[in-house]
């Protein structure tokens, strides 16, 4: 029989990465429902399936299409990410993703890269428009939500008031509540343990999801994989999505500007050259 205050954990694979949900005084069924929700959302937001909701939006050729409440929320979040990052976290980099050969899940291999076709990404506000229940992607353009979806999902999983849970989706995580001992959730961060309480953390790196001399982190200013002097950035921020946005932005800014940007937007950070 489970004792009160004990951490219940559930681990699973989704979105091509390892995911975990932890909770205090929650049932196993609750954690399994969390996994089910993650899988439903991942199927909705993936660009790798023609049947996903995102693929339908990208195929709409400039027409307004109906979107689910979750898709609407995530699309609005992508617009906020664009603003918070001064345009560096730009969901409109899908053409560049395809140009570098990232056309399917990496476990299935990459396609031949056609870097000469890569172009700087357009402003996201020129590509994506969102209205209540509807969205439109400009003709000839496409959006990729992979840059913020995991952080957003971690935030949503832990959003219910009063819960004492932690969701870690491929390293993008959010901790809600006071944790196992009442002083926060202990999370490994930059070689130390930090106690997170209603906070998020994320890591962005050019060393993972890389092949040959290419990697998946596109600099929208060039449309090509980022050539930053930083290899990895880890960040603690107010939410999982904010942490994801700040980590990516800092990595793209490079060592000159990243410290000041992190100081303004993060609560803890680790910049690895």
């Amino acid at each position, binding site marked *: 029989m489970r004792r009160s205050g004990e*951490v219940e*954990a559930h681990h699973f694979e989704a979105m*091509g*990465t*390892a995911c*975990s949900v*932890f909770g205090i005084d929650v049932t196993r069924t609750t954690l399994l429902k969390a996994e089910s929700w993650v899988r439903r959302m991942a199927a909705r937001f993936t660009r790798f399936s023609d049947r996903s909701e995102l693929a339908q939006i990208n195929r709409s050729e400039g027409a307004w299409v109906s979107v689910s409440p979750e898709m609407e929320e995530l699309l609005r979040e992508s617009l906020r990410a664009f603003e918070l990052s001064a345009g560096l976290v730009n969901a409109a980099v899908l053409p560049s993703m395809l140009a570098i050969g990232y056309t399917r899940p990496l476990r299935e291999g990459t396609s031949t890269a056609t870097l000469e076709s890569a172009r700087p990404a357009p402003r996201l506000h020129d590509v994506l428009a969102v209205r209540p229940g509807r969205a439109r992607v400009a003709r000839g353009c496409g959006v990729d939500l992979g840059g913020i979806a*995991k952080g957003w999902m971690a935030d949503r999983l832990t959003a219910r008031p009063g819960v004492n849970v*932690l969701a*870690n989706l*491929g*390293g*993008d*995580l959010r901790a809600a509540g006071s944790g*196992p*001992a009442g*002083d*926060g*959730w*202990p*999370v*490994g*961060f*930059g*070689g*130390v*343990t*930090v*106690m*997170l309480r209603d*906070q998020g*953390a*994320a*890591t*962005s*790196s050019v*060393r*993972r*999801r890389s092949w040959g001399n290419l990697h998946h982190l596109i600099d929208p200013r060039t449309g090509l994989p980022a050539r930053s002097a*930083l290899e*990895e950035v*880890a960040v*603690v921020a107010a939410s999982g999505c904010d*942490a994801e946005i700040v980590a990516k932005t800092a990595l793209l800014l490079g*060592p*000159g500007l*990243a*410290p*000041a940007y*992190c*100081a*303004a937007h*993060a*609560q*803890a*950070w*680790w*910049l*690895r*050259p």
Partner: protein
Amino acid sequence: MRSFLLKLGATALTLGTTVASAMYVTAHMKNPSAPLQPAVLASQNGGTVGELTITPGVRQGDVQPVTSTYAS
């Protein structure tokens, strides 16, 4: 006459408040003890690359972490 005095009083009050506010803001524009300042000032030295920076908003612990953030 009474109306004129009321207008004069209101105008004086407005001008006085404006001047006092401007003086207060000018005097407090750079407060070195503001919560975000230490981290921002430290970052301007460029010394945080390769180092871990933790602001007062995050507490360190000495227990085993249940999970960690990582690149995926």
